[in-house]
């Protein structure tokens, strides 16, 4: 088998399950129920402006928290001995092997009004606090579910930073803090970029987390899309249009954050 033919199975896959569905979504976005061309769906998407903003905002916060928590973890893992490093990696991946719904149910029982946290505060006569059905609960759910996708790419990039490079930086007069800002951080930028994409994209389109932890008042754009296909509002054309606009927004945000790719700009920012 030549190199070229080895790619055929994937090409077929990509055509069948990526290109054609994408084409269908675009087709549905610009047609009405009868199949004639219209901008109606796209225009109606504007009604959900606030939901878009909320989804993007909560995802940005979740992604930022994932980065803040995940970065030091990934760094320490990459500097640990190989056994410790592998054990930590396993511990981080372990929750991913459990069902997504189950994990999120777990958070419900923790955050509920008579959940573990409120029971604890109850011992001191405090609360109950409104933890579940808040934006905070949604963010917690997103961070918990998606943080491995931040840590893994960071970890694999940081593993490639040899100890001799860090030693060289210290040798040349960089204090431990400067080693981080001038060597580790710039060298881990590709991992940061991948991590941001891998956390932000699923966060911004999630619907289960917001339904289970956010209650009715915290509908995200994923919930609205779901409603168009499975709910009473059944309107696949509108659902496709919202998906399409969301996709464009994500692309836009990603290309703006693509500044991380540009070395010169990076220099100016630092």
């Amino acid at each position, binding site marked *: 088998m030549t190199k070229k033919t080895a790619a055929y199975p994937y090409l077929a896959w990509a055509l069948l399950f990526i290109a054609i569905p994408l084409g269908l979504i675009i087709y549905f976005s610009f047609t009405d129920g009868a199949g004639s061309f219209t901008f109606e769906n796209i225009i109606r998407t504007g009604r959900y402006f606030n939901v878009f903003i909320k989804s993007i905002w909560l995802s940005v916060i979740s992604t930022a928290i994932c980065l803040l928590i995940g970065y030091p973890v990934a760094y320490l893992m990459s500097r640990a001995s190989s056994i410790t490093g592998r054990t930590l990696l396993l511990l981080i991946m372990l929750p991913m092997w459990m069902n997504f719904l189950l994990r999120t149910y777990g958070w419900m029982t923790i955050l509920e009004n008579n959940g573990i946290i409120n029971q604890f505060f109850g011992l001191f006569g405090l609360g109950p606090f409104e933890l579940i059905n808040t934006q905070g609960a949604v963010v917690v759910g997103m961070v918990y579910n998606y943080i491995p996708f931040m840590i893994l790419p960071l970890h694999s990039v940081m593993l490639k930073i*040899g100890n001799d*490079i860090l*030693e*060289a930086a210290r040798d*040349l007069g960089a204090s431990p803090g400067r080693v981080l800002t001038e060597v580790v951080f710039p060298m881990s930028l590709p991992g940061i970029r991948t991590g941001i994409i891998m956390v932000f994209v699923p966060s911004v389109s999630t619907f289960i987390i917001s339904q289970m932890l956010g209650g009715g008042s915290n509908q995200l754009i994923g919930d609205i899309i779901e409603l168009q296909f499975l709910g009473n509002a059944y309107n696949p054309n509108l659902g496709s249009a919202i998906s399409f606009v969301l996709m464009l927004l994500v692309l836009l945000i990603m290309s703006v954050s693509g500044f991380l790719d540009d070395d010169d700009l990076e220099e100016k920012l630092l």
Partner: protein
Amino acid sequence: MSDIIISLQNISAEYDGEKVIDKLNLDIRDHEFVTFLGPSGCGKTTTLRIIGGFIEPTEGDVFFEGEKINGLPPFKRNVNTVFQRYALFPHLDVYGNIAFGLKQKKVPKDEIRTRVSRMLKLVNLEGYETRKVDQLSGGQQQRVAIARALINEPKVLLLDEPLGALDLKLRKEMQLELKRIQQTLGITFVYVTHDQEEALTMSDRVLVMRRGEILQTGSPEDIYNEPINAFVADFIGESNIVDGIMLEDYLVEFAGVQFECVDAGFGSMEDVDVVIRPEDFKMVSVEEGQIKGKVESITFKGVHFEIIMDGHGYKWMIHSTQSREVGAMIGLTLTPDDIHIMHKMKEDEV
């Protein structure tokens, strides 16, 4: 002595719970090119890393210009290191790499600029400022690594097998270049290598190390001509090492023959190692030879032939500009100067 720049006193160090350096004492003088030479695992790199501040000795003190610097982190030491695999910063270009140290010290930008270009000139890389380091050849990367270390004007430059990854021809060029740089700047170079030829070419002083100990210290000539024991002799250049017995002062017996020698002070009938450099044998006819044997193989080595002769129960290695037929009977003679007598190493050292 006042010109001692680095002094290690009673240093011991462990690696993974194993002792790699045992009570080592060492003085390094200002402006000298000193080389730690030894096989892998002899503790030479560990010693270098102790000077650099990357490893703390478990025992003993490190002095820099008379001041104790135990526990001082690397970035506060007035030494810089050229690492084995260069360890250049891949996210910076050549300029960024070389300027790194000065940037840490907050040196003004235009001063950095002049000093970087001076460094590039020193290592023959003018015009390479904006090159990415991964676009450079191994030799060029090495030059960047050297410039990056030297720009900080360290009093001592530590070099950890810096030429190990280069091919032979480039290595020879870089040896001369390093020596030139060291002489131009007049600073101390501490060099680590397992390559004896490299050590002999560049150093003012060579320290032969083995199992965390310094076996011998001296100028390249001294070490080559007067190795202290069979290990040093074998490590520095090629040698024939055979068992001998010291019959009396200036008389040794080996290979069943008695030879006059220049050594004295051994015990009577003491077992000794006899070391003979392959180039010191003189090939003569069988009748004239003190040692006789049959030529087993002959290999052309460019400047000389390497002849292996089987005789008196040993295989002798001979370097000569003259050739002999394989299978021919030949004789060898030695003058007293050619015979180096050494105490046997203790059993646990072998």
